[in-house]
Each structure stands twice: as structure tokens, then as C-alpha cells.
């Protein structure tokens, strides 16, 4: 693989957090329908699950607040590096970008690792443009870098990331709040078809700005993927669609170039 090569063919992949750490968990899945595999978000040190309400549903979708639990990069690499190396799918490792120094350390550990095609850096909802630039530069090296921006702020931050060296922008689920019981409010990421309109609008606006865009959010049908690509997205990420049951990739994702 050439340095900074980021070709995803077919232009469809799972979103970070939707299929675990390696493309082996559900054996029946026809992985040839995906062009890359994106790992769950990984931090340098282990992270435990979030406390409080972690799931709440609403018409058209659901809210999820998990805290991105993971065993830390060292354990993930120990458990999954050989599977990534054997995988026929190129792997994009999603890193939680808390600070530039940590991110740089994590990225260096992944360089020259067989099967790893690139890194995707998850940027928190509070990040400003300066932070985005700092994180992008810290992650940049031998591997192509995708910066995953909060959907609500993607338009504001995308150009900073691209100018700092990101190969593409992907879109994190929007955040929201729901009352789950009297006096109890849950906050978290929003998934489901109800997200699609805002995702299409955001992806279309990013493309108009000339930003290489990986569209994501609310994809629940082949037509949704096509709509995202027709807007000019270079690729599409699918998330909770894959959780609908055994047939989501096999039966419903029929890639036609």
C-alpha cells in the first residue's frame, strides 16, 4: 500500500463502534460488500462503560451513551493485530483523540502494522479549530488520517482538518438528550433513520466546500447509500443498520458500482 493511499472499494464501510474491533465476529457476514473495516473507538488506556442511562429509544431512532469502553490500545493490538493482518478487508483503526501527544504516540504504534490501512480520529464535541489542527498533525505520519467530526460542527471544523493534512472527513452521530423518566435526562449519540436528513444535508454541504467526505448517519437502505454517494461523498459509513439482524449486510447491502 502506498503512503497516504486511501482508496475504499466498494465505497462502503462500517462506522466506528458498530462491529467491534475486528472483522470476524459474525462469521456469516459477507465482508466483500464492505471496502474497509473500521474498529471500535480505542483509547491509549482502558476505558470503562458509562454510568447511568445508556440507551433510550424514540420514534425513528435511539440514543446511545456508552462511554466507548475499550481495553486500551496495547490490549487491542495484542488481541487483534494478527486478525487485522490476516483480514482481506483493510482495517481503519479508530483512535479517540483526547490530546495531541497521546494521539501521536498511538498512531506511531500502528504504523507498519500489517492490514492497517489508516487511522480515523474521533474528535470530541467540544473541540475548537485549533484542537482539530493539533490532533490532525499529531496523527499524521505514514498512515492516511480521517478526522471524524461531530456532525453538528463538521462544516465549521472540516477545512481546518483538511488543511492540517487529513485525507478525509467522516461524520460522528449527532448528540441529543431525552427524558427517560421523571427528572432523569439521558444524553448521548443519536442513531437510526431519523438522523438521515441532517446527515445528507451535512455531507452535501461538506462536498460543496470541496471537503473529501465520508458520509454517515441514519443509513438504513441501499438507497440511502446511493443518495450519499450521489451528493459526492467519497464513501459511506453504516452503523446501527448492521444491528437489525443477521441479514443487514448479507441481504440488504447489494453493492452495485
Amino acid at each position: 500500500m502506498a503512503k497516504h493511499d486511501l482508496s475504499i472499494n466498494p465505497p462502503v464501510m462500517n462506522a466506528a463502534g458498530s462491529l467491534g474491533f475486528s472483522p470476524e465476529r459474525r462469521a456469516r457476514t459477507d465482508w466483500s460488500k464492505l471496502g474497509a473495516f473500521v474498529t471500535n473507538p480505542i483509547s491509549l488506556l482502558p476505558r470503562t462503560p458509562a454510568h447511568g442511562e445508556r440507551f433510550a429509544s424514540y420514534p425513528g431512532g435511539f440514543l446511545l451513551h456508552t462511554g466507548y469502553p475499550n481495553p486500551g490500545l496495547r490490549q487491542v493490538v495484542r488481541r487483534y493485530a494478527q486478525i487485522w493482518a490476516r483480514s482481506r478487508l483493510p482495517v481503519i483503526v479508530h483512535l479517540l483523540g483526547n490530546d495531541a501527544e497521546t494521539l501521536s504516540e498511538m498512531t506511531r504504534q500502528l504504523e507498519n502494522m500489517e492490514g492497517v490501512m489508516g487511522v480515523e480520529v474521533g474528535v470530541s464535541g467540544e473541540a475548537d479549530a485549533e484542537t482539530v489542527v493539533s490532533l490532525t498533525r499529531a496523527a499524521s505520519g505514514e498512515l492516511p488520517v480521517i478526522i471524524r467530526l461531530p456532525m453538528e460542527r463538521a462544516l465549521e471544523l472540516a477545512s481546518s482538518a483538511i488543511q492540517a493534512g487529513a485525507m478525509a472527513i467522516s461524520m460522528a452521530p449527532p448528540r441529543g438528550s431525552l427524558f427517560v423518566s421523571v427528572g432523569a435526562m439521558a444524553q448521548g449519540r443519536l442513531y437510526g433513520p431519523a438522523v438521515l436528513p441532517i446527515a445528507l444535508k451535512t455531507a452535501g454541504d461538506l462536498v460543496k466546500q470541496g471537503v473529501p467526505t465520508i458520509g454517515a448517519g441514519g443509513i438504513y437502505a441501499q438507497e440511502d447509500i446511493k443518495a450519499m454517494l450521489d451528493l459526492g461523498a467519497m464513501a459511506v459509513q453504516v452503523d446501527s443498520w448492521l444491528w437489525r439482524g443477521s441479514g443487514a449486510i448479507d441481504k440488504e447491502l447489494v453493492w452495485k458500482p
Partner: protein
Amino acid sequence: MGYYTGRVSEIRLEVGGQWEIRILCPGEAIPAPGQYLLASDSTDRTAILGTPIFISEEISQGFWASPLFPVPWGPGTSLDLEGPLGHGFNLPRNTQRLGMVATGEIISRLKPLMTSLADRQTGVTLFTDLKIPRLPEVVEVSPLATLKTALDWPDFLAVDVPLNHLGELRGLLGVGNEARSPCPAQVLITTPMPCSGMARCGACAVNTRKGWRLACEDGPVFELSSLLW
């Protein structure tokens, strides 16, 4: 674990408002008590998530299922089934007196344990404040308030409790901060499992003495002694 096709042949409304669904499917697809299948309507492209379904009663050519969430399925609905998933109840073979505790919204996930013991002359008592559906004749029913004083009776406890009510078990069992069960016990933790183990997303995480575990994959039945509650 495997992938199967099933068909809804009948639905019934149990006492307490719990819908149960009769599913015809291959025998290999039938989950053990406490295990679950991930089920989805084969033709419905509008569903947002698959639905975990538990066995409430085994029948010829299938089982009566208790879904974790209400579902819009009716007789004739074709289902994609994935599983059985997770770890179910594992009762000791020498259980003579089984105590069961249902503190959530339904009893049906414990029912297959009752029927499996019905012809073994095992004493079975269900402690619950819920409305009682049809149960095997051998089952005695007592209110939850009596559990604390009856704990010298069972030699094994099977519990169905929502994750966010786990701490209430301490009061029901009359134990203090040490939270040790008076007899061996297994707990079916009911909680949303949005990814059903596909992603290890963490939404169903349970705190155990060995760290965080996932109800979808490591449970949903846990040894009570393994839980931090």
C-alpha cells in the same frame, strides 16, 4: 450459534399485559432458558434494531417467545433468527428446592425453568408481586416480601431482574453491604442490548468482580456471586 428462518404462528396476551409469540422454527434455534435469539421480520425494512427474544415455553416444532421489547409481528410473520446467543441458566442437577424471583415486568423468562423441573419432583416457589400467568401446577407463588424469611428453603435461586433494579435485590434478600446470597443463585439481567453482541458497544455492561462484562455476550445470566451489586 446459527442463522435460521422462523414463522410466527400465534400470539397470546398473558396476564399482566405481556405478549407472547409462538414461533415455529428448527429445534437448533430454540434458545435455552435465559439465552436469547436476535429476531427480525424478514420483510420489514423499517425496523431500527433487531429484537432479543427469550423462550417462555418449548412446544412441538418451536417455542413460545417473550420479546424484550414490544413487536408488531402477527401470525404469518416470517422471522430471521440469529442465535442462540449469550449464556443461559445452568441449574445444578441435584436441585431439590428451586426458588425463583421475578422483580421486573414479566415472569415468562423464568417459566421454562419451571416446566423443565416439573417432572423431577423438585419443589418450586416463585417470589413475585407481578400478576401470575398460567404456571405449572407444581409452582407455589409467594409475595416478594416473604422472600427474606424463606431463604432457608431453596437450595438454588433463579432471579430475573432489570439491570437498574439490581441493587434492590439486597433489600429483598435481606443482606447487607457484603451482598452475599444466602444460597447459590443465578441472575438473568434484563437490559437493552442494542447491538446484541455485534459491536461490544457497552450499552448492556454489567459490573462484576472480574471487571465489566456484557449482558449480550457474557450473560444475560450471571452467577449472583460474580456481580458487584
